[in-house]
C-alpha cells in the first residue's frame, strides 16, 4: 500500500517537473527562471527521497541530499550572485516567440513519450512510467537552449537538462552507482563555475551577455 501511495506521489512530482520545464521554456525574466530552476531541483530531490523511502535504497537518500544542496541551494545562490554582479537581475528577453515555442515543446514531449514507451514497459521499478517524462524534460531543456539568445538562460537550460537526466536515472534504475553520481555532480559544479567566469569575460569583451554578438565565426 505504501508502495502505491509513494508511486503516486512520485508521479505527481514527475508531472510537476514536466510542468516546470514548460514554464521555464516560456519564461522571459531571468530572475523567475532561476526560481523555477530551484523549484525543479526541489521536486527532483523530493521524488528521489520518496523513491529511497519506498524501496529502501539508502544510497538514494544521499543522492537526494546532493541534489538539494547543489541544485536547490548552491547553484541558484551562485546564479543570484552572478546576475547581481553582472547587473542583469531585471533582464527580460524580448525575442522569443512563446506560442510557437510551446507548440514545438508539446510536439517534443509527445515524441519523448512514444520513444520511451517500449522501454518503460520493461522496467521493473515503481517509477517506470516516469521515464517518458524524464526524457521529455531533457528534450525541452534542449529546446530552451536552442531558442534562447542570452547567456544566462542558456546555462539554466543546460542545468535543467542535467535535472532531467538525474530524474531519468532514478526513474529507470533507482539511481546510478554512487561514485558516478558524485563524479557527475562535481562536473556540473565545476561547469557552473566556469560558466560564471565566462560571463565576466564575455561582458568585458562585448559589453553585453547577448550571444548574438558571438556569431562572427562563420563559414563564408
Amino acid at each position, binding site marked *: 500500500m505504501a508502495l502505491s501511495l509513494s508511486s503516486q506521489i512520485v508521479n505527481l512530482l514527475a508531472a510537476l517537473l514536466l510542468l516546470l520545464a514548460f514554464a521555464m521554456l516560456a519564461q522571459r525574466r531571468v530572475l523567475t527562471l532561476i526560481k523555477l530552476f530551484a523549484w525543479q531541483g526541489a521536486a527532483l530531490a523530493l521524488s528521489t527521497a520518496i523513491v529511497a523511502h519506498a524501496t529502501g*535504497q539508502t544510497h538514494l537518500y544521499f543522492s537526494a541530499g546532493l541534489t538539494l544542496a547543489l541544485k536547490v541551494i548552491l547553484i541558484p545562490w551562485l546564479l543570484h550572485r552572478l546576475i547581481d554582479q553582472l547587473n542583469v537581475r531585471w533582464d527580460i528577453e524580448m525575442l522569443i516567440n512563446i506560442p510557437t515555442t510551446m507548440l514545438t515543446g508539446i510536439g517534443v514531449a509527445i515524441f519523448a513519450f512514444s*520513444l520511451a514507451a*517500449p*522501454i518503460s514497459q*520493461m*522496467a*521493473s521499478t515503481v517509477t517506470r512510467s516516469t521515464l517518458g517524462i524524464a*526524457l521529455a524534460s*531533457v528534450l525541452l531543456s*534542449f529546446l530552451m*537552449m536552442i531558442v534562447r539568445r542570452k*547567456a544566462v538562460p*542558456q546555462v539554466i537550460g*543546460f542545468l535543467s*537538462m*542535467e535535472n532531467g*537526466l538525474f530524474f*531519468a*536515472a532514478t526513474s*529507470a*534504475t*533507482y539511481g*546510478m*552507482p*554512487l*561514485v*558516478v553520481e558524485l*563524479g*557527475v555532480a*562535481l*562536473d556540473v559544479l*565545476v*561547469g557552473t563555475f*566556469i*560558466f560564471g*567566469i*565566462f560571463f565576466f*569575460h*564575455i561582458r*568585458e*569583451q*562585448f559589453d553585453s551577455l547577448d*550571444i548574438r*554578438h*558571438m*556569431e*562572427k*565565426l562563420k*563559414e*563564408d
Partner: protein
Amino acid sequence: MEIALVLGVPLAGAMVLAAFGQRSWAPEVNALASLGTLIAAALLTGRVIADGPMTALNEQVFVDPFNVFLVALTAFVAFTTALFSRPYMRTEEHHKRVNSARLRLYHSMYQLFSFTMLLTLLSNNVGMLWVAMEGATLSTVLLVSLYRTPASLEAAWKYFILCSVGIAQALFGTILLYFAAEKVLGPGGNALLWTHLHEVRGELEPTVLSLAFVFLLVGYGTKVGLVPLHNWLPDAHAEGPTPISAVLSGLLLNVALYAVVRSKVLVDGALERNFSGGLMMGFGLLSVVVAAFFLSRQKDIKRMFAYSSIEHMGIMTFAFGMGGPVAAFAGLLHMTVHSLTKSAIFFTVGHATQASGTQDMASIRGLIQQSPTIGWGLALGTLAILGMPPFGVFTSEFMILTTAMRQHAWATPFLLLALGVAFAAIFGKVQPMVFGETTAQRLTHPPALVPVFVHLAIVLLLGLYIPPYLVDWYRQAAAFIG
C-alpha cells in the same frame, strides 16, 4: 602500480603547476611531468605485453590491448607537444599575447587535460568514463579562450555549450545502458563495469541497447567532430593556442572515438544485425565528404587543418563501422598515424604563424626561405596527411579503401572523391605558403622542430615497415573490437 603512476604523474604535475605555473622554469616542469607520464605509460605497456589484460583499483580501471595502445600514443604526443609548447608559449609571452597568470592556468590545465584523457582511456566504469570525458572538456575550455579575444571567447563558448549538450546525450545513453545491465548483473557498481558488461553482452536487452547506442553515438560523436555535430571543432582549433590545437586534434578526438568504439562492441554483442556499424559508416562517410568540400573554402590555416581532422575522424569512424579484423586494424593504424602527423603539422603551423604574424594563408609566403626546417616540416607533413606514399597514412587509407571496395562497394566512389577534393584543396594552399618570397620574421625563441621530424619519421617508418610486435599488438586490439 604502473596504472597509478600513469594517472598520478599528470595529476601531481597539475597541482605543482597550479602553484608555480607562472615561473620561468614552468615549461620545463610541464615537459618533465609529461616525460614522467610517458615513462609510466611505457612501463605499463611492457607489463601488459608480458602479463596480458588486467584490472586494478577494485576493478575501476583496466588495461587491455586496445586501450594500452592509446595510452602509449596519448602519453607520447602529450610529451612532444609539451616540448613544442616551451618555445611557442615563450614567444607568445614575448608578443604580449599571454600574461603570467594565464601561463599558470595554461600549464596546470595542460597536465589536468592529460590526466582526464588518460582516465577516460583507463576507466573500466562506463559512468566514470563519462565523467572523465566531461572533465576533458572542462579543462580545455578556458585554454581555448586563453587569448581573451572576442573570437576566442566565442569559440570557447560554442565549444563548451555544444560539447556539454552533446555529452549530456551520452549520459542519457549511459543511463539506458545501466538500465539494461542492471537486469542481468543486478543493481550496484558492477553493472557499469565494462569488463562485466562485455561478459554478459549477449543477454542485454536489444531494444534498450540500440536506443542507448544512438544517444552514445550522438553524445561522444559531438566530441569526435562528426558532421553535423562538428560546428565547435574548427573554431576551437583556430582560436586556441597551437599546442592545444595539436592535442585536441591528435588526442582528444581519438579518445572520444575510443568511447564510441567501446560502446559499439557492447551493442554488437546484443544485436543480431549490424545496427551500430551502419550508423557509424553513415556518420563517417558524411563527415569525410562534407569536410573535404569545406576545405577549399578556408582562409585560416588552423581552420583548414581542423577540417582535415574532421575528414580523418570520419575515415576512422567509417573503418570501425565496417568492422572485421582488417578494417579495425586499418582504423587503429589510421588513429596512430593521423594523430602523429596532425600534431606535427600543428607544431610547424604554430611556428609558421608566429614567424608570419598571421593565420591568414594568403599572407603566409615563402616559409622555406625564412626557415628551411619549418618549411620542409610543413610540406612533408602535408604530403603525409594527404595520404602520399610512402607515409603511413597511405597504408591505412589503402587498407580502408580496399576493404570498402570488397564489402561496401557503394561507398568507395564517395571516399575517393572526398580524398581527391581534399588533396587538391590542401596542396593548392600549402604549396605557395612553403615556396616563394618571404615576409616572415625571425622567431625570438628558437623553434622546437625535433618533435616534428620525430613524428614524421615514425609515420614514414609505419608506412614502409610495421615492426612485428606492433603488428601483433594491432591484431590483438583489432580482434578485440572487430
